[in-house]
């Protein structure tokens, strides 16, 4: 079992390391004054040189947001957020780079340090990949990366290679300029501006994010990836990702994120929209490693994210895989609207909470079309004084004959000061649909621990091993490069939770 060996090695090499992505980078920044008014929205739109329609769209979102109240149904608690005390725009001062060579060397150095070298390496780098400590596949030549730093995208690699096959992969602000027809056609069609409080906020003030378009029949030649980094103080990150897979297109997209260690909380409110047309497939993988706060719950990112996929085409398929180890609070429900006949939605999730972290995460599968299928596998691990909630909805509408859902939610508790909760909603209005839901809660069994200990593993290693086994169903869904990193992260997140 190479993966397991790997984990054990990692656990050993990482003992007592804590959060190692928590450094700050000193870069000259262009920061908007704190506060949020229509002027802020206009300022962001102007900075991006946006067309009039997009400004109108933002203003409509802002008006909707002002009329809404912050949701409080999730099982998370936090002091009231002062939305006027946040910088809504922070970007490195240097003018936007024309190519990778123009990127601020400070920035490049930071990404190196994070283990994300923004170099297009021609040589096979498999050896380097395995040993890196970042979150994203470490300079692997098969991954194109869009690096988003605070409010702007600073670099996108492998664009030429991708362009040859017709794939568009660029910052969304650039897509607004270069491909306005595509952006206008799809933006906000999956997550409308007034969908929810945080989505409305995002729609009003989003600054950057990635845009992907895979044309008809194209199988994207490499993994696409976006790396999000929050660096500036007292700022929020509001990125917007839009991925469109045209008929028969295939794409695998990865997302990773980190932030400096700070005592105050920072808000990250992203929106991700996926559109899959006939026979298209999108695989969206996330390794979420925002700064989780310290052992006493000071600091950390509030990760309030809206992610939704529209499986519009027949036989289209969207697969969400997420490994959530970071953030002080996670509020996130990647969803699939299964509209196309025979479309498929999948959700594989591992959510780990330790110390005082709170996670309220899950999915929604809305079955509209005939013979639509969905699978939900959720593994929640709580340790320390954390709370971990699975919240999910499976809705079968009257026309969804032959729809099928299977849900499996397992929770693992490590220690007696944490909480694990399961809140599934199941609504079926078609007799031919089959829905199954199973949920279990348990702790690491004494006999499993004893077995491992008796074979010479330390308690921490044994826990790492058992946890990896518990999560295996989900981890195997991750792209290879990610799976290894995710296993390491699990180990780091649970450090100090036993013994």
């Amino acid at each position: 079992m190479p993966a397991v060996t790997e984990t054990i090695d990692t656990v050993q090499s990482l003992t007592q390391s804590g959060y190692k992505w928590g450094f700050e980078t000193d870069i000259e920044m262009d920061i908007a004054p704190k506060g949020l008014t229509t002027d802020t929205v206009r300022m962001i739109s102007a900075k991006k040189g946006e067309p009039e329609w997009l400004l109108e769209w933002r203003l409509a979102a802002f008006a909707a947001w002002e009329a809404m109240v912050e949701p409080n149904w999730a099982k998370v608690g936090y002091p009231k957020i002062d939305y006027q005390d946040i910088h809504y725009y922070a970007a490195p001062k240097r003018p936007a780079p024309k190519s990778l060579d123009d990127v601020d060397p400070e920035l490049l150095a930071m990404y190196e340090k994070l283990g994300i070298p923004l170099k297009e390496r021609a040589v096979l780098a498999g050896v380097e990949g395995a040993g890196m400590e970042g979150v994203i596949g470490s300079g692997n030549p098969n991954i194109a990366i869009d690096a988003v730093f605070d409010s702007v995208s600073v670099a996108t690699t492998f664009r030429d290679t991708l362009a040859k096959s017709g794939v568009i992969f660029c910052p969304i602000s650039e897509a607004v300029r270069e491909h306005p027809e595509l952006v206008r056609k799809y933006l906000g069609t999956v997550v409308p501006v007034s969908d929810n409080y945080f989505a409305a906020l995002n729609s009003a003030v989003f600054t950057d994010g990635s845009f992907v378009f895979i044309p008809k029949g194209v199988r994207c030649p490499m993994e696409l990836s976006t790396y999000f980094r929050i660096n500036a103080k007292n700022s929020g990150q509001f990125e917007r990702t839009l991925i469109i897979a045209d008929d028969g297109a295939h794409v695998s997209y990865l997302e990773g994120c980190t932030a400096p260690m700070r005592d105050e909380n920072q808000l990250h409110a992203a929106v991700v929209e996926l559109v899959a047309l006939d026979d298209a497939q999108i695989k969206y993988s996330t390794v979420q490693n925002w700064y989780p706060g310290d052992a006493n719950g000071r600091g950390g990112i509030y990760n309030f994210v809206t992610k939704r996929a529209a499986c519009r085409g027949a036989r289209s398929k969207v697969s969400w895989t997420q490994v959530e180890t970071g953030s002080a609070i996670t509020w996130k429900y990647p969803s699939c609207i299964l509209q196309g006949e025979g479309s498929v939605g999948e959700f594989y999730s591992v959510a780990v909470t330790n110390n005082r972290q709170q996670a309220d995460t899950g999915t929604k599968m809305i079955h509209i079309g005939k013979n639509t299928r969905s699978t939900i596998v959720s593994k929640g691990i709580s340790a320390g004084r954390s709370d971990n909630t699975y919240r999910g909805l499976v809705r079968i509408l009257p026309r969804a004959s032959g729809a099928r859902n299977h849900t499996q939610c397992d929770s693992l508790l490590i220690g007696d000061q944490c909480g694990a909760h399961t809140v599934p909603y199941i609504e079926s209005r078609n007799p031919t649909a089959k829905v199954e839901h199973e949920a279990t809660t348990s702790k690491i069994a004494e006999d499993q621990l004893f077995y491992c200990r008796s074979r010479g593993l330390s308690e921490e290693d044994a826990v790492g091993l058992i946890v990896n086994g518990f999560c295996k169903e989900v981890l195997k869904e991750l792209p290879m490069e990610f799976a290894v990193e995710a296993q390491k992260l699990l180990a780091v997140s649970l450090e100090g939770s036993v013994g």
Partner: protein
Amino acid sequence: MNQSLRNGADAYLARYQGLRGRLPGDAAIRDAAAAAFSEGGLPSMRDEDWRYTSLRGLAETDFQEPLSAVSTAPILGEAIDAPRLVLVDGRYQPGLSTPPAGVTVTPFSENPYFGRLPDIKCPMAALNTMLAEDGVQLHVAAGVDAGTLVLLSLAPDGHRPIAFHPRHGIHLEAGAKLTVLEISRGQGAYLHNAVTEAVVASGAVLTHIRLQAEGPEAFHVNTTFAEVAERGTYDAFVLTLGARVARTEIHARLIGPHGMVHLNGAQLLGGQQHGDITTVVAHDAPNCGSRQTIKNVLSDRSRGVFQGRIEVARVAQKTDGYQMNQALLLSPHAEIDCKPQLEIYADDVKCSHGATVGELDAEQLFYLRSRGVPDAEARAILVRAFLAEAMDPIAHPGARGLLERAIEQWWEHRP
């Protein structure tokens, strides 16, 4: 808030103001409930606990006070051969009742004890506290096996809409035993909004079986608060067949080690019926167990709801909790909504829940048909088999037989 719900709530509050001087018992308790009810009103679908059940129909019906005297002896309907207590329009009828030897029966109107468990945060329980007039308080002394008792609630009038809010209490002292078979029947449009407090002391066993066969235009809301001490058992079963809108809400709390709670139930609905079973099992002590098996059989345009929450407190180590909710949709217009929840704060526990939704298995049906069983009968067999898991723990042969006959009748007369 929804205007019709607000108006409905205001009508109840006005009625309370009118009756306030005449209602029995401590006015301060009723005032507190009225204040809570006034603030929250009738629950709307925006309240998380009521997201699948609308009380608009209830709010829009102008319910009257029941008449003060029963004119003719009502038809009791089928029951079992056991001592019985009869309530008509929510009022205890000593003349029709045959109290058993081992149970002390006190009408609420004579001794208005509100209990200590009911929670006015449950809006319908607050409404009951505000307006309760009568009901029965049952008490079984320590170590007494009081056998079986039938609690029969009738609403025989049917000429004008009435509302009644009976308040019941069942108190079993240490080691006591009692089986209560509660049957509700009626005619016409009425609201039966009952609250029951069940206190099970250490080692006591309360078996609480309910057959809800209200009239098709009725509203039935039943809220039970149960508390189970060390090694006690609260074993409940509810069969929902009647009412236009029914809500059975059970809050069971295990407060001593090695206690046991069983909450089983079945809902068989047709027409435009709406049935809601909502349970909360709170494990507040170690080494307790809870078992829930709920089955829904839904035909026509009916809608079944199940919400069930298992809460495990930090002290409740070695909890063994299980919950299963299954639904059979027999028609393309039927709907099931379920929300099974686990809320767990202890690590050394075994808790699981499951839910399945689907139609009758085509292969099973084919198997029976291929052996010469006619379609209708084959379906009846499969439905009976589907219900068996929930019914099996009913040990009382008489009660079991009564429920099975009721199910049979439902199946035969289903529209």
